[in-house]
């Protein structure tokens, strides 16, 4: 049940056709992990908090640096030197005090990834590197948790929604491809757009409205302002999700 205050706070989205109060109640019951509190985690957490997702867990081990501020809009100049998770909780609670926000100050590793996503309904991939994305993808697949991928480079971005066992996963698309680690170029508007697309997908999935970005990798090219798609298929030999397909066939 929504409170009077919640009905007023979310009034403009409750009146969206197909959303209704029932959709808002689904959001209120939802528990979402946002893996990474940087350029992608900032917009996705802000909009998921504003939309009324009932419980948000942000995982990040970094501290705010001056060079983060061109894109990580959860943090302001006054936050430089603070732990990102502390600053994120502060901002998001001030935005929406009616939801539960939890911040975990840990680096995501193979050893802790399963624990970090356990008990949550959805995982948002807001990482800044591919190896951790693969860890999250596998953990999400293993636990049957929908996974919302996003990534950026310069003015470009990628996004895809993964429903374990049903649609292509990140490994099906990238096949373990690696790229050089380290400082990557990025303009803040690129993760803003991709992070908002991820949040859009999360909201749609929870509410049960619209068509998800599954089996297609969205390719955003900000320099030419083009959105294109790469159609992909679930790989029956995928190292992460291939076994689910075989089980499905039983």
């Amino acid at each position, binding site marked *: 049940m929504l409170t009077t205050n919640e009905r007023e706070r979310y009034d403009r989205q409750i009146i969206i056709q197909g959303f209704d109060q029932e959709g808002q109640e689904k959001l209120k019951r939802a528990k979402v992990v946002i893996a990474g509190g940087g350029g992608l985690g900032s917009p996705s957490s802000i909009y998921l908090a504003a939309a009324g997702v009932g419980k948000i867990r942000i995982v990040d081990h970094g501290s705010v640096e001056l060079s983060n501020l061109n894109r990580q809009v959860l943090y302001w100049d006054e936050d430089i030197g603070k732990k990102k998770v502390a600053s994120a909780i502060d901002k998001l609670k001030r935005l929406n005090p009616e939801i539960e926000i939890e911040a975990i100050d840990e680096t995501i590793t193979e050893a802790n990834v399963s624990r970090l996503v356990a008990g949550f309904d959805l995982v948002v991939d807001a990482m800044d590197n591919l190896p951790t994305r693969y860890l999250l993808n596998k953990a999400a697949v293993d636990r049957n948790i929908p996974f919302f991928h996003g*990534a950026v*480079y310069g003015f470009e971005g990628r996004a895809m929604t993964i429903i374990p066992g049903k649609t292509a996963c990140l490994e099906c698309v990238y096949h373990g491809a690696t790229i050089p680690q380290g400082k990557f170029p990025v303009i803040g508007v690129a993760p803003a757009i991709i992070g908002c697309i991820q949040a859009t997908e999360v909201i749609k999935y929870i509410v049960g409205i619209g068509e998800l970005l599954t089996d297609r990798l969205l390719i955003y090219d900000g320099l*030419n302002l083009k959105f294109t798609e790469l159609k992909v298929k679930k790989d029956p030999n995928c190292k992460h999700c291939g076994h689910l397909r075989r089980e499905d066939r039983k």
Partner: protein
Amino acid sequence: MSIKIDIPSYMKSSTDNRGVVELNGSTVGECLNHLVKQFPRMKKQLFSKDGNLFENIIISINGESAYPEQLAKPVKDGDEIKIVLVVGGG
């Protein structure tokens, strides 16, 4: 046979700033080899020293992934090849 190759923004400096190149070929590999002949700087963008396509490149033919054996995939007149870069930043 005319095949269009869509060049990513970050590689256009290697194609005289051309975003689309039209050329001939019956497979993705042939088309990319013709692209490299026309724009030699594309070789380092696409291929490792042993001649394999970099693993961070996905080839799309008419919007569909050409994986696996991307270079061997046949193409026909009017097809569009897109070079998609794997990105990982956030």
